[in-house]
């Protein structure tokens, strides 16, 4: 878990400061510098447009951090709120919200993302974030509802109610803080899921229309895989994505009390 945390922190630090560390502009096209191997001027070489790979990687980290943080934050907030409402009010509210969750679960996730992104000709970051949030909240809602159903029977909730606390007050000052533990595990895995889906969307040509997301780099790298001497390029975004995935999996398993000590 410590390894996972350290790996994750490195990702966040590079995401925050990467653009300042990047030696070149990640959009600067120079066709005289195409497909260069690694050198002292370009530590990781250049791509098919003569763009410095290291700079792409670092700006891509920023992009990945922005997308994953926003999607996870929005989805978690929305999901926890919906789940808490369903678990607290039960009855009709619960029925309606949970049927909605069921339908969302029956609908293949990535397709909804694709469908939303494909509606716009040149999707920006905002559209991609919106698309990923559209079904991202579902998992959080389920976990929150289950937790609230159990928590609402606790004595401290009864005590709060006896003191005259209102429903919303109990929900948001008493229940939600107690949900954050289980939700944290999901939030951790969420970072990995978002980065994977973003990469898949970019690979299908539906990502945010900038050249330096890791997904776009992967798409370019796999397209030029036949070009000997350029094969290492694809490993750069591939390993970057793998890095984050390993980090969140180690971290998430470490945070999960049920799985603690495994792996």
């Amino acid at each position, binding site marked *: 878990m410590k390894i996972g945390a350290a790996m994750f922190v490195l990702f966040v630090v590079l995401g925050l400061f990467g653009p300042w560390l990047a030696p070149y502009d990640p959009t600067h096209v120079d066709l005289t510098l195409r497909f260069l191997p690694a050198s002292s001027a370009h530590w990781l070489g250049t791509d098919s447009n003569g763009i410095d790979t290291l700079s792409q990687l670092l700006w891509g980290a920023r992009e990945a951090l922005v997308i994953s943080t926003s999607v996870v934050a929005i989805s978690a907030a929305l999901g926890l709120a919906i789940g808490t409402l369903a678990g607290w009010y039960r009855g009709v509210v619960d029925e309606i919200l949970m049927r909605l969750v069921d*339908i969302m679960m029956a609908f*293949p996730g990535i397709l909804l993302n694709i469908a939303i992104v*494909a509606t716009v000709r040149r999707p920006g970051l905002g559209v991609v974030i919106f698309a990923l949030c559209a079904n991202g909240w579902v998992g959080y809602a389920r976990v929150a509802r289950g937790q609230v159903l159990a928590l609402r029977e606790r004595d401290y909730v009864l005590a709060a109610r006896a003191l005259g606390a209102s429903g919303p007050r109990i929900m948001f000052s008493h229940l939600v803080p107690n949900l954050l533990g289980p939700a944290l595990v999901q939030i951790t895995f969420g970072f990995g899921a978002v980065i994977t889906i973003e990469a898949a969307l970019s*690979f299908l040509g539906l990502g945010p229309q900038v050249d330096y997301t890791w997904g776009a780099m992967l798409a370019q790298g796999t397209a030029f895989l036949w070009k000997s001497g350029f094969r290492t390029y*694809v490993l750069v975004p591939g390993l970057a994505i*793998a*890095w984050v*995935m390993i980090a969140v999996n180690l971290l998430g398993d470490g945070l999960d009390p049920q799985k603690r000590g495994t792996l």
Partner: protein
Amino acid sequence: MSLGSFLLRRLGSGAIAILGVTVLVFAFLHIVPGDPIDHLAGGEATPEQRAALEHCLGLDQPAGAQIVAFLGHVADGTLGHQCPDPAHKPTVAARIFAVMPYTIFLAIAGMLVGVILALPLGVLAAVRRGTWVDTLASVAALSGIAIPMMLFASLAVLVFFAELGWLPGPTETGPAALVLPALCVGIHLMAMLSRMTRSSMVEVLGEDYVRTARAKGLPESRVLFVHALRNALLPVITVAGMQFGSLLTGAIIVEKVFARPGLGTTLLEAITERDYPVVQGTVFVIAVIYVLVNIAVDLAYGLIDPRIRVR
């Protein structure tokens, strides 16, 4: 509850979910920007041509009538027709069923690869918990999850097709062409299923009946594979069932790398072309398979664990 009434109830609630998905897709298609007529007719269509297309697609009808019309197409088995000139174009159902076998074969083959790799790996990791075997299995599972599917698939093509020439590559057909795509799908599944198998097995191995089985002198292989694994399988089957459902469309990356037709690719094309009838029909078929797979998973529970068999 008899098996018959169990099936009836599940099919009933499944039908409601499918109807929900249908209405949701319908609403979604009408909310999003982008006019299907623009895509079909192109820039220089006359207003008459546009009106004819609109009529052909049924877009001149009120929303409720359009849904009823779609349900009619479900009933007559065509799932709708493609415009313009529906008489000379294959029905939506024909278009979907032309690619279905590719998707189904890939999903089944991928699932087989995944399960065949995951079960022994998970069991071994659970039995040798804390040793290097366990660590190795964890590393294998973690890499299966961590390496992006497109990278893995592309590298597989490069190595086994382009460099070694052992296996057929993209665009080829035949059973051998299924090997690489199935491997790519399977490795990813293996990662998820082996972790599930391991944690489920670790739990079951601590149960009293396993100790009893060992105490009465059963051979270890029988204890593991008959007594323990059978009980450990339930959560694994749940995950496998859910994954099978998402494979129907989730294999879209693999389909792209190997230039294979499939449901996911068909749907992606239909969405980008605003081909409403095909989107609606494909999502319907996917939802039906989802529901059927879920029922099959529940029946499989009963087969494996008589305690939850419906009576």
